[in-house]
């Protein structure tokens, strides 16, 4: 079967655009082939900054034929009294291209009609692709789009050439003034071309000769291995986070990693600043040994070995200028203590309509004091937390953060330490913005965690309070990220503060937003649900736990995990049966406060069973041992079963009926102290053979 090749040639696509575009291209081509009856064979993609490639190695030559039934005239019109076809039948058969004696009679709701079975021949694949490929190409979506020249198409970057071939045939079409063909381009410098592709099967050979390593997996592997080797040569290890590797992979078409060096004197600058300059600004991999940076970096050239010495020397020169700049800013910053910069925060907007950073700092101090009181921190911890809150944004006014915004927090921590602030204060400042990315971890220190909580709660309350909740994929204020970071920290540090109280208190920091609690809470709860699901908990378990009163995020996580673990044990069937029987029959209108009473044997039996487990369950719950509590409650299965066997719950006597509901209500209440099992989607198989 023929091979399909599509190469979309573009001006340098931003590195972060390429992988998502390749995913869309693969899914899009699969869907297209399936819809058009062109099979569901393999589809693979390659990408570089200048090309998005999709290949289907085996595509049928044409669509399969289809059969369509077409209704013709009514039978009484189509045949005369002798049963011979009339002009109407002959005309219909002719128009459908079938023999008149192949017409079939069918009765329909409207009477008896003749039908023709018309064979629709499948179209040749090139014809179908000519129609469909332009939409596949223009239908890709990118995080940001642009126009160019006089074209109206919006795309990630300008489209410059298209290769579309089925074996050795070009599939001809045009997109934004670009005609598809068999001509590709090579590496911009090493072998620009143009290069003709004789046959789709020769694509990889042609681009290889054009000095392009088109398979991004291969480029990534080459870079990873070379970077490791170059670092090992100087006895070190490269700091190579996955995100940087991916970015560099999509910045080059022909990677040649090389090692450069810098003046060891720069190692006196804080490590974080050095790493930021190298990684974020130059896309270099720093080199370290046993946690200490070495005066080397590894960069990746887009090209081969020719002139590599000059490229190395140039990059070293550039890095030196960058580091000198950083040193200048650092030394300037150190001329005054961090605390002296607080005043400047009054000139910085936190978020439009939410005042200045100075005002945010005031709110954070007050929120920190509240947290300290709620959590009964020691006097020393309280002082440290409030001081950290006061200083945590001061670094926004430093030169270094002005130059390297991603170092906010980190620089504050460094400077606080150098100013002689207590270590706990410096650490809390340094950590409070973590986790910064999906790869990062939450603060490790207790005070850093609390400050991080205060910061996120304040941002969420303010932004959501003035209606800045994200819509669609756009989240300009990073509120989704703020919410999940908040939950992560609350959970990791097991902070026993009711989430609703935290949000309410944060909202109180903003005069005039007090009445927006409902909007704010709706978003927070929605994100909490999403966050729990992202942690891999099943949907129904999450709903079961959210369906009963809960307080802190850590508590919620404990219950969900206990429920999921317990559900996998044999005792779950017993618990569920006891709960389910009681819950099904229960009439909430008959319930009231107060201890249930028993009047006969069966009632006494159940009441005693309840009284036997209740103190244990309550003790387990209060010490967060939810699984043990559930196990204890599963022991109620037999008493509940005996109860149902012995008595008629809905007794005609209202007093008796109320008494029995009260007993079953107590069973349900105890279970619901942990989770509402009625929200679980329990399959019959889950409950065993009984």
């Amino acid at each position, binding site marked *: 079967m023929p091979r399909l090749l599509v190469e979309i040639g573009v*001006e*340098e696509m*931003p*590195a*972060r655009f390429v992988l998502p575009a390749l995913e869309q291209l693969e899914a899009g081509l699969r869907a297209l082939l399936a819809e058009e009856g062109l099979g569901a064979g393999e589809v693979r993609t390659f990408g570089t*900054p200048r090309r998005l490639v999709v290949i289907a190695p085996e595509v049928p030559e044409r669509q399969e034929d289809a059969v369509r039934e077409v209704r013709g005239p009514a039978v009484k019109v189509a045949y005369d009294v002798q049963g011979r076809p009339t002009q109407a039948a002959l005309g219909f058969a002719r128009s459908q291209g079938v023999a008149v004696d192949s017409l079939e009679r069918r009765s329909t709701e409207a009477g008896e009609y003749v039908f023709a079975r018309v064979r629709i021949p499948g179209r040749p694949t090139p014809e179908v692709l000519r129609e469909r490929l332009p939409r596949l190409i223009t239908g890709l979506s990118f995080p*940001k789009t*642009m*126009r*160019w*020249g*006089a074209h109206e198409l919006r795309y990630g*970057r*300008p489209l*410059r050439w298209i290769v579309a071939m089925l074996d050795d045939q070009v599939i001809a079409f045009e997109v934004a*003034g670009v005609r598809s063909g068999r001509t590709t381009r090579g590496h*911009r*410098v090493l072998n620009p071309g143009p290069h003709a592709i004789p046959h789709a099967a020769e694509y990889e050979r042609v681009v290889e000769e054009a000095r392009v390593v088109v398979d991004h997996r291969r480029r990534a592997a080459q870079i990873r291995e070379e970077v490791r080797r170059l670092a090992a040569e100087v006895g070190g290890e490269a700091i190579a986070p996955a995100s940087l590797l991916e970015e560099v992979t999509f*910045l*080059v078409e022909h990677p040649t990693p090389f090692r450069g060096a810098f003046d060891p004197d720069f190692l006196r600058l804080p490590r974080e600043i050095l790493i930021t300059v190298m990684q974020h600004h*130059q896309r*270099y991999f720093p080199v370290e040994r046993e946690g200490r940076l070495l005066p080397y970096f590894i*960069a990746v*050239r*887009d*090209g081969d070995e*020719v*002139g590599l010495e*000059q*490229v190395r020397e*140039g*990059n070293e*020169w*550039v*890095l*030196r*200028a960058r580091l*000198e*700049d950083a040193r*200048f800013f650092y030394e300037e910053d150190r001329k005054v203590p961090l605390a002296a910069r607080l005043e400047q925060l*009054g*000139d*910085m*907007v936190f978020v*439009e309509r939410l005042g*200045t950073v100075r005002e945010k700092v005031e709110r954070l101090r007050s929120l920190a004091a509240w947290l300290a009181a709620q959590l009964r921190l020691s006097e020393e911890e309280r002082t440290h937390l409030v001081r950290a809150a006061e200083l945590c944004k001061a670094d926004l006014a430093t030169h270094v953060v002005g130059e390297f915004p991603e170092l906010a927090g980190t620089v504050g921590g460094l400077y606080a330490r150098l100013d002689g602030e207590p270590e706990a204060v410096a650490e809390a400042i340094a950590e409070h913005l973590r986790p910064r990315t999906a790869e990062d971890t939450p603060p490790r220190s207790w005070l850093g965690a609390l400050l991080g909580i205060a910061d996120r709660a304040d941002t969420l309350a303010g932004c959501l309070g003035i209606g800045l909740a994200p819509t669609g994929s756009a989240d300009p204020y990073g509120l989704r990220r703020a919410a999940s970071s908040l939950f992560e920290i609350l959970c990791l540090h097991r902070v026993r503060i009711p989430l609703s109280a935290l949000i309410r208190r944060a909202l109180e920091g903003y005069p005039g937003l007090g009445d927006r609690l409902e909007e704010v809470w709706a978003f927070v709860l929605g994100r909490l649900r999403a966050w729990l699901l992202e942690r891999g908990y099943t949907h129904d378990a999450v709903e079961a736990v959210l369906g009963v009163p809960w307080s802190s995020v850590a508590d919620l996580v404990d219950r969900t995990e206990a429920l999921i673990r317990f559900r996998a044990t044999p005792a779950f069937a017993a618990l569920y049966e006891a709960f389910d029987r009681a819950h099904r029959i229960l009439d909430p209108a008959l319930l009231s406060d107060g201890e249930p009473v028993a009047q006969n044997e069966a009632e006494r039996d159940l009441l005693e069973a309840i009284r036997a487990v209740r103190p244990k369950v309550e003790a387990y719950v209060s010490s967060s041992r939810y699984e043990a509590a559930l196990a204890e409650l599963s022991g109620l299965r037999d008493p509940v079963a005996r109860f149902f066997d012995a008595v008629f719950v809905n007794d005609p006597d209202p007093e008796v009926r109320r008494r029995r509901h009260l007993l079953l209500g107590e069973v349900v209440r105890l279970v619901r102290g942990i989770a509402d099992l009625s929200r679980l989607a329990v399959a019959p198989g889950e409950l065993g053979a009984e």
Partner: protein
Amino acid sequence: MRFQELILALDRYWADYGCVIAQPYDVEVGAGTMHPATFLRVLGPEPWKVAYVQFSRRPGDARYGENPNRLGAYYQYQVILKPSPEDVQEVYLRSLEALGIDLRTHDVRFVEDDWESPTLGAWGLGWEVWLDGMEITQFTYFQQCGGMDCRPVCAEITYGLERLCMYLQRKSSVFDLEWAPGISYGELRHREEVEWSRYGFERADVQRLRTWFDAYEQEASAALEAGLVLPAYDYVLKCSHVFNLLDARGAVGVQERASLMARCRRLARQVAERYLAQREAMGWPLLREAAEVRGA
């Protein structure tokens, strides 16, 4: 390559390509984009190719001439190609070769970088161009200018002349660049950096600057009312420059900053609208000319 030779080589290259070599504008601007040869000419359907040097003032970036990499004013080499040609990247890369940069022995990258000017209501998408890890050029496809869609879209190529020259001459201080034989960049510009830093950070009279901002704004509006688009634009530029001075002086508060920028943007938008109307009334002269060239 000496600083002046760099300029001469770029002029030669872009003139040969077919650009008008314009001259620097004589009103204070923060970037080459604000020169009317860019801000106004990128609007509307008329084709336009231009290249020029623009002295660009950024009072807030000044460092008393003490930082080897930072300047309160510097030279941009600006090129506008409208509509953006299909081979615009290759054309740009050849300009580097014209500067004696052998691409085979260097590493050139196009790294994502988008650009926005809130005071001009302008934005675009593109790259910063890296030469061996050094950012030497800003490359932008203008999407909007003066709040209006650019149709067609132009390519803006802005070379940072000092950066590029420091790299070529391997000088670690901008002031050590050789401008002409025996004359350094510092000789021409160092004193200026020192004095303008002192003025901008310490001496500029805030009260007077505020008065000027208001006066320039009124003058711009009055000129617009009289149908005088180009004089109006000069006063918009002056407003923008006064705003930059106030900002460097630390005299602009949070609320005020947004409002001053919005006032500049509003004027810039009006100028852009009037300019388009004016060109249309003139029958888009450059479109006519382009048609004649094709006809001949």
